[in-house]
Each structure stands twice: as C-alpha cells, then as structure tokens.
C-alpha cells in the first residue's frame, strides 16, 4: 500500500475488497460501535444540544458569508500579536511556503501535530523532497507513518488497525525512525501508548520547528486553538523555537465567545468526552513562553471553489469531529481507504469532490457512496445536511452544470459512463408521465411472470448476485382496484 491516494479506483471497486476483508470489517465494527454509544451519552448530557448545534451552524454560516472581512481581520490580529501570515491558494503554494520557512531556520526535521490540512496538501512528501523529515507525533498518525499506510479516519487515522497489528508495526518499524520499541512489547493499549511516548520523547525534546493545523482561528483576537488528547500537540506547539500552522480559511470564527459553542460540541461529537484532555490556545507569540517565531499559512486549495456552490458550501462548516464517520453504515463496511482521500466517510464524500472537482473516477463516484440514510446529518454538530449535498453533487456528475474550479467559473459536461442510466431515467420519466404506458408495462410484466428468472444476467447481477428478485404478482394493484372498486361505482 502506498502513502498517497493518487489514481484511486472508483468507490465501489475500492470498497469491494474491504467488504470481504474480515479483519478490517471486525476492526471497524468494533471501533465505530464503541464510540457510537458513548457519543450518544455525552450528547444527551446537554439539554441544549439542539440549540448549540443551531448556534454552531449559524456562526459558521455567518463567517462564511463574510469570509473576506474575517480573513482580513484575522490577518491584522495575528500580525499585531507578533505572528506572520502567509496566503496559499493551493497545495503547491502552501508546501513551498512551509519548506522555505523550515529552510530559513536551518533545520532538517520538524515535529508535527496531527493536521488534516497538511495531510490534504501532502506536506510530508513535499518536505521529504526538500530533504526535510517530518515526524508525525499523534499516536494514530505515527502508526500510519511507521506502517507506510494511509489514514482511514479523520480522528483516528489508524482505525483500520487493531492492537495486534499496531504492536507488530511498532516492533518492526520503530528502530528505522529512532528509538526502537521496547523488548517484549505486548498488544495492551497502555503498553503501546508507552512505546509511542518513549519513541517520540527524544524528538520532542530536540525539536526546533513544529508544524500544526488548528481547529479554530478567532478573527477578533488572532487566537489559534488546537484540541487534542495526548499532549503531543502541546509538545509541538510549545517546545520548538518556530511554529508553522497551516490552516484552511474556513476555520475562522469571528469572536472569542464563539468558542463556547464549539468547545462544547466538538469533544462530545468527536471522542465522546465532556472535554478532551488538552486544548491549547495561543495568540501570536509570548515572551519566553513557547515559540519565538509563529507563521500562519492560510490555505485555500479548493475551499473558495466550494464556497461558490450555494448548496455545497455548507460542507465548509465542518469542524472535523468525525461523528458522521462513526455512525455511517457505509463507512463501517467499506473502510476509510475506499474514499480515496484524507477525508473519508460521509463528510469526505461531499468534501473531496468539491475540493478536488469531479474529474477523476474516484471523485465522480463519491457522491454515490451513500444510501442517503441520514444518520450523518442527525449527528453533525453543525447540521451539515450531507444527504442534500450528496444528491446535489450527483446532479453535478450526471447533468453537469456551472462550477468554479481554481477560482474560475466553468461549465461541466455530463459525466461519461452515465449514458445508459441517463437514457433509462429519461425513459422512466416518459413512461411515468403517461399512466397508460405504465399500466401496459405492468400488465406485460404480470402476464410474463412465470418465465421471469430469479436472477439477472449482465448489469442486473448487481442486484441478483446477492438478493433474489421479488416475484411479480398476477395483477398490479390498479387492475384489482378497477376490477373491484369501480364495479362498486368508484371514480376513475
């Protein structure tokens, strides 16, 4: 398995293997079911959950609606507090900015806090190409990095690995990267956590450059917020001399007070805790406490294109809690890798095709990676109507239409590969607009029912490979109705 998502096959193909991988299915089932019940309990503790959810949604919508104003305000406050703000329109620009900043320090290694934005832009690979080694310090990211694997979950990128597999990766790989795993390492989670502590400690203590993302940026004060559990975040944010934070432009909230909403909804939605063990907030630089140099890299990379879509822009409310992944029955069975993106699950299925466009096979297939069951929308702490956006993106795929790519308005052509479906949908619409045609079809089906097979050839195998077809009745309802009710004088 390679460390990138480039050239991924369409979702159904990628999911095919995962569905039949019993270990993976077991790992995902165990983990997602564990967290589901806990989340429900943590949320039920707050009588005003619905109001917090609504406020979170409104704060984010308001911010997005005035995003230009808040970005400028944030830049001013961060600068006034001693930070330096950089703007990156895409992944390449962001990677170049970060690499140059690291080179200016003269260092050749950085320690990293888990960050979706830097995963998204492939920062580690870009730094590697410049001779800079990036060490992931979050436990799950460490598991992924040591295992030369790909992340499969937003919160717990190594969710697809069970404790036995993690033990094996640590025992095998840690010595390649630094301090080896202790002899006789077992698979108890406490021992595995201890092994990670020992392995990473030397890296933290010597680190001169830290790289992070941020959960929130407060426009009025210039404050950044990182929410974490392990303390690796605190290490990276406070011990190095230089801190570089790469943050998506949608992570802004207008005021300090706004944090009161998200610091209540995020931990409960994410790890099902009343509060996560550590939350760090910092505003620029502070004399003698923490990094002397602070750089904020504001990242677009498809976010403004997403903002241009009036239905799809709600995806930018996302606070990356991953509650939607944990409740999703499709995610549970297909696994995170099938989504071909650092953003898997329901939110990934609406985010990736908007950030990257729908040109690739995988991105065009993601809007269909859902049964539209609505469990994701129900748990979303900022009320993103994921099913609504999925259907909207399906429309973009099959009908084409106006979209924005890299800041330019373009008109998409209907995707190839949907021609037969499109014809069938048109034919069905034509028939359904004419009750007489529908009736003729139904009668034909009923009269020939004795010769209907229970399984289908060709594309029909998608259904009948695993499910029998229902038998066709002797007569459709409408014939019975006409025969019996109209005889009693009912209306036609």
């Amino acid at each position: 398995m390679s460390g990138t998502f480039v050239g991924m096959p369409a979702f159904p193909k990628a999911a095919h293997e995962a569905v039949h991988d019993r270990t993976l299915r077991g790992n995902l089932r165990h983990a997602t079911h564990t967290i589901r019940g806990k989340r429900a309990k943590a949320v039920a503790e707050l009588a005003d959950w619905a109001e917090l959810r609504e406020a979170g949604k409104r704060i984010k919508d308001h911010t997005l609606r005035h995003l230009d104003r808040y970005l400028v305000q944030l830049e001013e406050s961060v600068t006034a507090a001693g930070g330096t703000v950089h703007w990156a329109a895409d992944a390449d620009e962001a990677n170049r900015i970060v690499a140059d900043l690291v080179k200016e320090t003269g260092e050749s290694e950085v320690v990293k806090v888990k960050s979706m934005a830097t995963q998204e832009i492939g920062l580690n690979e870009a730094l590697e190409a410049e001779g800079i080694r990036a060490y992931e310090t979050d436990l799950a990211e460490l598991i992924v990095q040591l295992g030369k694997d790909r992340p499969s979950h937003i919160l717990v990128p190594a969710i697809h690995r069970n404790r036995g597999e993690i033990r094996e990766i640590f025992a095998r790989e840690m010595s390649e990267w630094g301090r080896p795993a202790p002899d006789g390492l077992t698979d108890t989670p406490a021992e595995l956590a201890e092994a990670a502590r020992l392995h990473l400690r030397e890296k933290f203590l010597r680190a001169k450059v830290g790289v992070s993302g941020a959960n929130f940026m407060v426009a009025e004060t210039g404050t950044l917020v990182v929410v974490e559990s392990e303390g690796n975040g605190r290490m990276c944010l406070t011990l190095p001399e230089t801190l570089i934070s790469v943050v998506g432009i949608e992570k802004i909230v207008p005021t300090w007070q706004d944090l009161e909403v998200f610091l209540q909804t995020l931990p409960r939605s994410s790890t099902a805790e009343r509060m996560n063990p550590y939350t760090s907030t910092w505003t620029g630089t502070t004399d003698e406490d923490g990094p002397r140099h602070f750089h904020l890299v504001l990242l677009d990379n498809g976010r403004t294109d997403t903002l241009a879509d009036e239905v799809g822009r709600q995806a930018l409310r996302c606070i990356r809690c991953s509650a939607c992944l944990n409740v999703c029955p499709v995610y549970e069975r297909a696994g995170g890798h099938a989504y071909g993106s650092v953003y898997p699950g329901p939110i990934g299925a609406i985010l990736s095709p908007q950030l990257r466009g729908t040109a690739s096979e995988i991105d065009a297939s993601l809007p269909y990676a859902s049964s539209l069951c609505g469990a994701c929308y129900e748990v979303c702490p900022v009320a993103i109507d994921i099913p609504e956006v999925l259907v909207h993106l399906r429309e973009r795929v099959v009908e084409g239409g106006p979209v924005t790519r890299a800041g330019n308005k373009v008109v998409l052509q209907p995707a190839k590969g949907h021609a037969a479906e499109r014809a069938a949908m048109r034919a069905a619409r034509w028939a359904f607009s004419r009750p007489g045609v529908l009736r003729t079809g139904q009668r034909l089906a009923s009269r020939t029912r004795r010769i209907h097979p229970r399984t289908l050839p060709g594309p029909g195998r998608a259904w009948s490979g695993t499910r029998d077809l229902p038998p066709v009745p002797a007569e459709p309802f409408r014939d019975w109705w006409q025969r019996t009710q109209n005889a009693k004088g009912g209306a036609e």
Partner: protein
Amino acid sequence: MSGRERILGRVRRALADVPRDDTPYERAVVRDYLPEHGERTVDGTVDLLAENLADYRAVVHRTDADGLPGVIAGLLAARGASTVLVPPGLDEEWLAAAEVTLVADRAESTPAELDRVDSVVTACAVAVAETGTIVLDGSPDQGRRRITLVPDHHICVVRVPDQVVSSVPKALRRLDPARPLTWISGPSATSDIELDRVEGVHGPRTLEVVLVG
C-alpha cells in the same frame, strides 16, 4: 497577483449570489443555548468539579489553606519526588513542608533539563465544573506552558470556590485570549487504539488536583 489578493478575490466572487447583509454580529447569531447546565449551589459546583476531574482519572484531594502544605508534601513524598519545578510566582508557603529540591524555571532551561525533574506544582486560572477542566494562563503562579508538560507528575492547586465556574461559557468570559492558555481535563490520554480511551501518553501521566477552600 499575491496569494492574498487571489484568495480574497475568489472569496468575493464566490459570494456574489449572497444578498448583502449588514446585521451586526451580536444579532446575526441567536444564542439560545444555556449559560450553564442545571442549577447547583456553590458547594455543589465544587463537588461536580471534583467528580468530573476524577471521572477522567485526575486524582482529587481536598483541604483548606492550613492543610495545603502538608497535603502537597505528602503527595510529593508518596510519589518519591526529589526535584520539583516551581513557577516564579508560586506561593512559597505551599511547598514549605515538602522535603524536596525546588527547581526554578529559567528562560534558558532546556526541555531535556525539564524532563529530568520529577514533579511540578502550579496554581491555575480557572476550573470548569461541568467538564472537569483546569485552565492555566501562564500567570506567575502557573509559569510557562512547558513546565506543566514535560514533567510526568503535575500537582495543580485550585482555590475553591473562587476559581471554579460551572460551564465552558463562563470560563471563557474569565480568560484573557491574549495569554497562552492550556485547558487540561485529566491526564494525557488517547483513543487511537480501537477508539478505546487509554490514559497516559505524552503529557504528565499523573495529574493531581488539590481543591483548597
């Protein structure tokens, strides 16, 4: 064109369909959520803090001002700590009974030096009962962020009931965003193995909170 102008231009074009709205922010977002959850007496709020701290595996002790030096001395002795980091503005009385070597935090102290210290004792800025959280803001009795991070044992003193608030909204109102803040809810933990919670990763693995009232 600079990245800044390009991004701001894209944002403005992306929002072309959105009708202009100059509602001031205070009115644009309805905040009908609760300022705190449930009604409690002052003592009840302190009890809830103790309960929630313990729920996430912080070790909670309660005493009064006179008993505090003895409690701290006892905790350090039980731990077998011989060196203790102290922030510059910590009340000297607190460690008066402890038989340990006090280590002052100096600007030039390296992380490796901090790593060799057994324990750290600090005060806090505020504590949040509903979530079992203590918040440090870098005041002289709390010190730089690194001193409560690198040592493996942290004793934090909370003055009750003055420093205790019931909820997250109330805590934010007491805090100054210009200061570097660390919100701590129990010892370091992870859910990264099978989404099951395990305490003790990089931060102090033992967090003891002394409620002084």
